């Protein structure tokens, strides 16, 4: 009997595990779950251990590099020189390494936003929109109370960013809980809605005086997030992102809410039967996810751009989704994956400059990596065994 599962999410496939030590497993799903070619048989693993996942992940990255190398080669460039330039741009010097962390900062936060939601099986694809909502909350506070004592102003701006992201995410969350609306669709559509709302504000009430650009005025220096070091753009937002990752990790592992979020993601039917308030947990998950994306917006605005423009996002929300998936929804893995993607973004500029390969290649790398990592995550559930021939 297949219980209905909310969010249209499918129950994880139980496969046909080999019999346990004492008895055969409860379910036998019929004969077709393993297949063979020649002397090799592909079988489902009963337990996927971290080392299986790491091996699959490493293989995926190697294959991604090979594919990209092939593309570069097809462009008539040297793959090794290009990768060297990419690496050089990302980690070649102290400055470039720090700049990589700058790029990684908002990605960590949107990666966490996606990871939290996906853990609960709530497919929030709207980090991009919630990121804008956070920026709008931040700017609203700055615009209204910009002359406040800076520490208080910062607190208010971040709170407003979190609230902005939360509210925007809760629209989709509410629609899901109340009307079973597909969150993927609603969050993606809400991304566009908020983009147009922001465009209106940037061309109207919030537009910087005496300009034609769709942007606000520049913030005063006291409202900038302080930087760590001279000669680098690395700002306190990075620390905020790291703390956020630790908090999310703690939330997921140690709190009752985190337990319920994981339970919901694993089996929402059993969660309902065991008295977990599925609607409440879904809404709270969306709220946390939205808040993280909103804070990412504040961090980018206050740390780097210092004025609101539509260009701030640059797909940071969407990249966060890829990062969360590559990190297998692990909050600390998100940090690593975000730095890797930040390095790609950062290094690509140097690569373009040195070899003439368009920066857009990074998008190809991101896409290829995502596809391969997803394949790897499925592949890690299987193993290949040699079958002794007989007869």
């Amino acid at each position, binding site marked *: 009997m297949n219980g209905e599962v909310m969010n249209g999410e499918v129950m994880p496939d139980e496969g046909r595990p080999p019999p346990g030590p004492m*008895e*055969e*497993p409860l379910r036998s799903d019929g*004969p077709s779950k393993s297949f063979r070619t020649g002397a090799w048989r592909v079988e489902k693993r009963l337990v996927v251990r971290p080392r299986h996942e790491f091996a699959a992940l490493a293989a995926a990255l190697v294959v991604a590099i090979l594919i990209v190398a092939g593309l570069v080669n097809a462009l008539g460039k040297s793959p090794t020189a290009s990768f060297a330039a990419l690496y050089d741009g990302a980690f070649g010097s102290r400055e470039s390494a720090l700049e990589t962390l700058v790029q990684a900062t908002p990605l960590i936060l949107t990666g966490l936003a996606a990871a939290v939601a996906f853990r609960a099986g709530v497919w929030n694809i709207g980090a991009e929109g919630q990121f804008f909502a956070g920026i709008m909350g931040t700017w609203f506070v700055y615009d209204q109370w910009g002359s406040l004592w800076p520490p208080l102003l910062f607190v208010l701006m971040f709170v407003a960013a979190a609230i902005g992201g939360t509210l925007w995410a809760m629209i989709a969350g509410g629609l899901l809980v109340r009307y079973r609306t597909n969150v993927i669709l609603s969050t993606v559509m809400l991304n566009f809605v908020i983009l147009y709302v922001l465009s209106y504000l940037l061309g109207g009430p919030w537009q910087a005086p005496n300009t034609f650009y769709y942007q606000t005025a520049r913030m005063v220096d006291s409202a900038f997030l302080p930087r760590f070091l001279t000669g680098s753009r690395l700002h306190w937002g990075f620390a905020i992102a790291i703390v956020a990752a630790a908090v999310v990790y703690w939330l997921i592992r140690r709190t*009752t*809410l985190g337990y319920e979020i994981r339970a919901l993601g694993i089996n929402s039917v059993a969660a309902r039967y065991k008295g*977990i308030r599925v609607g409440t947990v879904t809404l709270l998950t969306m709220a946390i996810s939205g808040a993280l994306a909103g804070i990412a917006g504040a961090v980018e605005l206050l740390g780097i751009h210092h004025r609101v423009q539509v260009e701030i996002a640059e797909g940071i929300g969407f990249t966060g989704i890829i990062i969360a998936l590559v990190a297998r929804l692990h909050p600390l893995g998100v940090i690593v994956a975000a730095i890797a993607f930040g390095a790609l973004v950062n290094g690509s500029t140097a690569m373009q400059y040195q070899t003439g390969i368009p920066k857009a290649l990074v998008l190809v790398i991101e896409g290829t990596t995502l596809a391969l990592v997803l394949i790897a995550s499925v592949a890690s559930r299987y193993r290949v065994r040699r079958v002794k021939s*007989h*007869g």
Partner: protein
Amino acid sequence: MTDSILSVQGVTKRFPGVVANDAVSLEIRRGEIHCLLGENGAGKTTLADILYGVYRPDEGTVILKGRNLELHTPHDAIKAGIGMVHQHFELVPPMSVVENVVIGTSASQWLDLTEVRKRLGKFFDNYDVRIDPDAEVGRLSVGEQQWVEIFKTLYFGVEVLILDEPTAVLTPQGVEELFRILRRMRDEGLTIVLITHKLKEVMELSDRVTVLRLGKVVGTVNTVDVEIDDLARMMVGREVLFQFKRRRSAPEDPILEVEDIHIESVTGRGSLKGLSITVRSGEVVGLAGVSGNGQNALFDALVGVDKPAGGSIRIDGVDTVPLSPNRISRLGVASVPADRIAQGLMMDFNVTENLVLGRHRSSRFSYAGLLRRKAIDAFAEESIAGFDIRTPSASQPTRTLSGGNLQKVIMARELSGRPRLLVAHQPTRGLDISASEYVRRRLLEERDRGAAVLLISEDLDEIFQLSDRIAVIFDGRIVTTTTPAQADLESIGLSMAGAAT
């Protein structure tokens, strides 16, 4: 020498950490009904899967009619003349009976449905099975779907038919009809291999029986030469108690009072049409019935995930209809769901985490929204020991546990709160004899402690064995209420089929 059609010689099949079949040898004779008897995990299904080309043996050979059999896929098996009906049907529900039969015949690009329909109709007529070849398979009863599976296999012209636990889904009358027709098919020359763990079926139907235990053949015997106790001993490896010591139950005050509840069916879960039932402290009420008659809806209503449109449910006098599942469980309602994987467990949690599922917010296991990890770990160790859950460690992924141990995890969790009412839905389905015995014993212990136990089961033996009172559910209502002493299998079976008024 009797004519051997299928000979298994020294077949060994290993899975990681376990030898599912260990040098298994047996002979299947032409035109006999041969039972493969064994507990879950004895290796019956693995052996059948080898005969059907799902697995290849690591060692040993299978000989069909004197020729060495090299099977790579079930398709090869069918071509060689061996067909199998699995416990879980492989049918396409929205398609008609005829279309389902045709699916497997990749013989030609050209579909001649008329011809198939004719042949199938003849088949059905011949065996007195009343199924419309053009009916949509999804609308057929489970018993009828089984016939479609069997005839689909026969349509390929197989000589050996393997049936994996075919009676699990049938009423007593359905079983009788199945057996009647299987005997006739045997008399007409078909060889039938029947996999089961039910001793009665073996005694009733088979000509010979091969008993498997822990992957090895214990022996092959002529059914007429043995008693049911002999088979039980061969199967389990020790004496089996078929009777539980029944303390005279002394039912006291009603704990569960269900009055006239109605629930509209959502997609085949079965409706409730004015069901009333009472369970008192210190008694087991067995609810018998063929699945799909409202058991799921009743279970859902009792635990609170579904709400009746009319009527009332009271636990200790408290109306639970407006309450959430969480509130209801805090009134002392524990539940063992029918589908333990889908409804009762988080397969990707570890054992510890599953043991507190639903109680994770209680003050014992959490404080101010934080999990009390020490208390949880201690409780897990205690439960694993107390319920003899076989797991390498408490942090073992739940996914790796066997069915019996999964059920023990659920039992440990549900009984730990010393419930007032325990609702157990098919609590021993799919479990082997030892695990079933254990679960049943625990249910009786709960009764003796003073809990009210509602046992919803399709296994009539279990109902008779455990119940102080028996109620039969049919079409969303209780049609009969009786006691094991007053009732007999046949009358209960008739009520289950809706024949009683």
